[in-house]
């Protein structure tokens, strides 16, 4: 009887933890802020529309409308790798140190890998090639692991994204066509208390184990009460 009580109480405690996790994962993502941008992308060029460090609790929703088909990429680099790339870019282009904000690190890494022989480049040389779609495609071929999501060619799309880890994330729009494309983008930050993909499985496991342990004790308790 004591063993069943101990297991039963352990079960009810585990069950409560599981239920708390389910409750926390229920609210839909909140949207504390949003921003919009309208502009044009030159033929066969790409743009970084939005970038920043995101955690599993924070993500964003993007919607894109354009006059012709564009490709949208979500790239994610771990903070450690990002710092490593920053150092590499700084060593490769010491004269461009003044423009080395986080924003330019990934495009410059792609340039360095696409044009390894570019010695002592001027800012104009870099800007000429940095936003080429071919440079982006080459970069993504070399680092396929950083592509978190990519859209098929489309003129209207919407996508919601919550990272599974701490990542430096870039939202990129590429115009592969030979014509200029007008693009309107909207970015909405999303916040969740507990990302569903992380908590659902543990919650299901805890609830199942909790119920399995608690049932014999609850039955015994009911029987005991009814006999009294």
């Amino acid at each position: 009887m004591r063993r069943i009580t101990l297991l039963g109480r352990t079960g009810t405690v585990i069950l409560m933890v599981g239920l708390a996790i389910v409750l926390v994962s229920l609210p839909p993502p909140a949207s504390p802020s949003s921003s919009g941008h309208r502009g044009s992308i030159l033929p066969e060029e790409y743009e970084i529309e939005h970038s920043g460090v995101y955690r599993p609790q924070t993500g964003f929703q993007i919607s894109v409308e354009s006059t012709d088909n564009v490709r949208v990429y979500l790239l994610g680099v771990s903070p450690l790798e990002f710092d490593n790339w920053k150092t590499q870019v700084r060593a490769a282009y010491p004269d461009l140190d003044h423009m080395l904000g986080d924003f330019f690190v990934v495009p410059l890494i792609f340039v360095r890998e696409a044009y390894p022989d570019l010695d002592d480049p001027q800012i104009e040389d870099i800007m000429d090639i940095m936003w080429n779609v071919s440079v982006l495609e080459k970069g993504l071929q070399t680092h396929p692991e950083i592509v978190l999501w990519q859209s098929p060619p489309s003129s209207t799309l919407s996508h919601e994204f919550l990272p599974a880890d701490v990542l430096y994330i870039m939202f990129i729009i590429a115009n592969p066509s030979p014509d200029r494309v007008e693009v309107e983008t909207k970015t909405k930050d999303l916040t969740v208390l507990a990302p569903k993909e992380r908590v659902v499985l543990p919650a299901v496991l805890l609830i199942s184990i909790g119920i399995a342990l608690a049932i014999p004790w609850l039955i015994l308790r009911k029987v005991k009460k009814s006999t009294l």
Partner: protein
Amino acid sequence: MGKGRPFLEVFTCALNEDHRFPILEILVFLCALSTFVLGGLAAVSNFTTGEAFAHNLVSSSTWPLIILVIIPILKNIAYGLGSDIEKGITQTLFSYPLKRGYILTAKLLSALGIPLLLFLGISIFGLFLLFPDIILANPGTVFLTYAAQLSPVLLAAGLLLILALRLKRGVLALITGLGLCIVLFLIFDALVNSLAYTTGSNWSLKIYAVITPNLALQEYYLGTLLGFTHQIWVPSFSEVLLYLLAGYLLVAVVFIIGYVYFKRGLRI
């Protein structure tokens, strides 16, 4: 007959009495819920990185849990032990073939050990589930923050023990204990901060850091974000460790007094 069986007997009795269904389950549910909600909110409103972020995460997600630990401690130690002495249950327990010290240990394991075990288990599990990378990358900071957060709780538990043994009345010990907790956690905190603010001296902060070492840890990790106190006090890491050590020494002294009084001074 060895000491194990009577000890388990006393422990089981205390468990039955201290953690009735469904009070423990409700506290566990609230504990888990607040860990996830506050951990999530702390991550969303992040303004720090690395160790400071890990400290802030643990610190802000655990402070309400401390209230949830204090409630069973107040009920089990102040009220429970006081009532046991008042009703003569402790006298019955003294007839067991068990030393007084073991009886108190069994009581404290149930009244204090179980809530602390649950609190730590749920809190660490919750934070690990939400932020495995941060918890694994900063184990030292996470451990120190938990240790600093628990020190005042243990101190309050020790003081409540002495109070219950001295007053020997459940309700009286509960009311006095509640007052003591309010003074220790709320009034002292406000008093120390206003003293530091008005005098511009850090001695009140330093004294209070012995009772609540998390204050020193906060100044060390989040100092500049805490406002005026950082202008008058920037503790070094070794100082923080000293405050933590002093805090636990104080806890040890209080518990030793409680044990000695229970073994030798308690006349019932």
